[in-house]
């Protein structure tokens, strides 16, 4: 049957036969790089259009419908415009860091793509510690924001960056704890292991109520970690003009924009992997015939379907809830999410030790 892993395998075989090991490694790196970059571009185009349409429909508007058929060329026009727009560097800015920050944001996004399983047995890098890797590398993201805020030499940027730093550092805790609940349940940090452990049902169904609680906490925490409304204090227009990217224009701004959407995609992919079984089709325990029917849908469609469902959920939050104040934000994390997720982790550990999960 047609699948991503077969294609990847045959390409690798062909490269290994044709070239020396070093050259075949280089070729594989180049292919992977091009694939990731094109995925970035496609994701940026699709997610921005999706956001605009979702926001429009939720606000009983029409949304972009005039640029191209049904507005599908809208983001293409935006991208092209941002490409040819002037990229300013303010005179008082720290030029090196100012120009490095958006690139760093994008590179972090690219690094995060590595351990994600896009389809059955299809990964760029099968890491032993996949989930830990993602939560580790995503913490570099905050540095690029702090860098952008500092280097802009603008008080709004600096304040936005500090807010964003406080927010990301604190919400990383509860995101990590809710990831840990699933790690405790399946006993591995490896992403394929986690997915295969869900072959007879996804963790959100198998793990009773604690899994659902940790799913909710995970979604809230990653919404805050990606700086999206209702947690977009880092770029609160009413107070901080545009937060840490106030001084960015043209393509540098577009890179930040893109990095935000790619980050949303990545955290949703991780959420789908942990709680909704990644590329694993919808299986119910021992119902062999039902499971067999579900297997006919390709694994990549399952993965992207779940991921886009979670992305839609995060967009739904954004266009429904008003922005929090900074003290409310920290209250929510330290007084509600963190204690709840700690108790939840204890509960899950008890469940895992006693073997109550299915």
């Amino acid at each position, binding site marked *: 049957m047609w699948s991503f892993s077969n294609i990847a395998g045959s390409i690798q075989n062909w490269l290994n036969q044709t070239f020396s*090991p*070093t050259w075949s*490694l*280089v070729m594989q790196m180049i292919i992977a790089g091009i694939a990731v970059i094109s995925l970035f571009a496609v994701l940026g185009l699709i997610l921005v259009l999706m956001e605009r349409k979702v926001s429009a429909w939720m606000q009983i508007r029409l949304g972009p419908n005039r640029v191209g058929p049904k507005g599908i060329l809208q983001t293409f026009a935006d991208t092209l415009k941002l490409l040819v727009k002037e990229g300013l560097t303010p005179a008082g800015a*720290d030029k*090196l*860091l100012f120009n*490095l920050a958006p690139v760093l944001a994008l590179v972090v996004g690219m690094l995060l793509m590595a351990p994600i399983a896009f389809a059955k047995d299809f990964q760029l890098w099968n*890491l*032993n*510690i996949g989930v*830990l*890797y993602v*939560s*580790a*590398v995503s*913490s*570099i993201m*905050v*540095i690029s924001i*702090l*860098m952008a805020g*500092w280097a802009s*030499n603008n008080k709004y940027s*600096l304040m936005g*960056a*500090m807010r964003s*730093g406080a927010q990301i*550092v604190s919400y*990383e805790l509860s995101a990590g704890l809710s990831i840990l609940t699933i790690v405790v349940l399946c006993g*591995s*940090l490896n992403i394929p292991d986690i997915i295969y452990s869900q072959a007879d049902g996804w963790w959100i169904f198998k793990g009773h109520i604690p899994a659902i609680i940790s799913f909710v906490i995970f979604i809230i925490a990653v919404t805050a970690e990606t700086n999206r409304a209702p947690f977009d204090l880092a770029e609160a227009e009413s107070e901080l003009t545009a937060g840490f990217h106030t001084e960015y224009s043209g393509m540098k701004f577009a890179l930040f924009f893109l990095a935000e959407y790619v980050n949303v995609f990545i955290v949703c992919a991780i959420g789908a992997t942990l709680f909704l079984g990644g590329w694993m089709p919808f299986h119910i325990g021992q119902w062999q015939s039902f499971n067999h029917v579900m297997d006919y849908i390709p694994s990549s469609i399952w993965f992207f379907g779940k991921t886009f469902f979670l992305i839609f959920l995060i967009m739904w939050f954004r266009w429904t809830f008003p922005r929090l104040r900074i003290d409310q934000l920290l209250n929510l994390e330290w007084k509600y999410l963190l204690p709840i997720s700690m108790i939840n982790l204890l509960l899950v550990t008890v469940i895992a030790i006693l073997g109550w999960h299915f």
Partner: protein
Amino acid sequence: MTGATIIFYLLAALTIVSGLLAVTTRMIFRAAIYLLFCLIGIAGIYFWLQYQFIAAVQIVVYVGGIVVLIIFSIFLTQQAGEKLPKQNLGRQLFSVLAVFCGLALALVQLAQYEFVITDGKPVEPTVANIGKQMLGVDNGGYALPFEIVSILLLAALVGCIVIALKSNTETA
């Protein structure tokens, strides 16, 4: 020269160059950023060695925690945007000398040490193994040092709280 060697030298160059820049730059925020790249380079070397867990911990602790802490403290400092004053020649010479002494010491140690090829097969650095080693009480377990380190951290936490507590007499 294989691809792996090239990657090693690239990572090493990143680490050394950014480390040097971190101590020579006169802008304090840039120094923190160079330090960040230095730590990322070290994490990259861990990845290259297949010690993935340690690499991830390196990133979580140093990049996600310590560098962010340093940056925050720089943000809260007055006049952090200005260039630091130039150090006088004596200090510069002394620090260069100190660096060379340290380097020489390390090199001498490395040269004198006799590396023995062991027969035992390497321990798989999986997370499960690390966890068992770390919290094991049998032969080769590190439960006691682990607990002692955590007592140190607890003491530090208690100390923080004591410092942060306002005494009633002062406020009244």
